[in-house]
């Protein structure tokens, strides 16, 4: 502490250490938030269901997605990344997941939404197993913090079924 430079260095180092500590407890405080998200997905229409030239099935759906994700936002949240995935079981794989739609929600005000849209990403299968297939639609979300740990969770909605024949 005998010179200006020495004191300035000690102060800056200690200040950055305390800052790291503050950010760590800010991230830890996210564990205490009460999260109650809700969602509903409706398949309005199966636009078409075809076998592609390479032998893979493809489906085009029109989805009606309603979600209330406001409770996921804490003081330490930068944005929430949400996506809808279709999950099914085939003879080749125990679990197939195909992402159909995603969105970045930057603020709490935009977290309650209703959207009617055809699938953003193609719903393809590896093979031609989709006729008459039962599948789940899952809404996944990743809560991206300003500092610290990212939390991810999902809601699984089951009971959807593809038609038995190509259209």
């Amino acid at each position: 502490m005998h010179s200006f430079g020495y004191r300035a260095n000690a102060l800056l180092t200690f200040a950055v250490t305390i800052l790291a500590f503050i950010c760590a407890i800010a991230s830890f405080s996210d564990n205490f938030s009460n999260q109650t998200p809700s969602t509903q997905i409706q398949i309005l229409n199966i636009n078409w269901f075809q076998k592609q030239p390479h032998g893979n099935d493809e489906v085009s759906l029109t989805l009606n997605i309603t979600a209330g994700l406001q409770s996921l936002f804490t003081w330490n949240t930068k944005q929430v990344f949400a996506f809808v995935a279709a999950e099914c079981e085939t003879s080749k794989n125990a679990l197939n997941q195909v992402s159909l739609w995603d969105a970045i929600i930057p603020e709490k005000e935009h977290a309650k939404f209703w959207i009617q849209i055809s699938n953003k990403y193609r719903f393809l299968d590896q093979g031609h197993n989709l006729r008459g297939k039962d599948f789940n639609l899952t809404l996944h979300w990743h809560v991206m913090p300003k500092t610290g740990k990212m939390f991810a969770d999902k809601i699984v909605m089951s009971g959807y079924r593809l038609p038995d024949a190509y259209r």
Partner: protein
Amino acid sequence: MDWKGQKLSEELMQILLLVFGGVAFITGYATSSFRTMMLIYAGAVLFTTMITVPNWPFFNRHPLKWLDPIQAEKYPKPELTNVISKKKKNKHY
């Protein structure tokens, strides 16, 4: 700064940063505003720098007592030649 002043500066720096760190976190958490927390903490770092880093007069209240030049001449630095020759004798066993 004198010795007591240096100690005061270091302790003051640590206490101020810790306390303001706690205040910043609690205020930010209570107002649910990350931005508030960061602004309070930035202000705290600047404030602490202004208080503890420059050589303020209140850090020099117990100045070191250096000897006057005349007194220093009365007690000259001892010579080292005797010590060296004694060491050489001991090595010969």
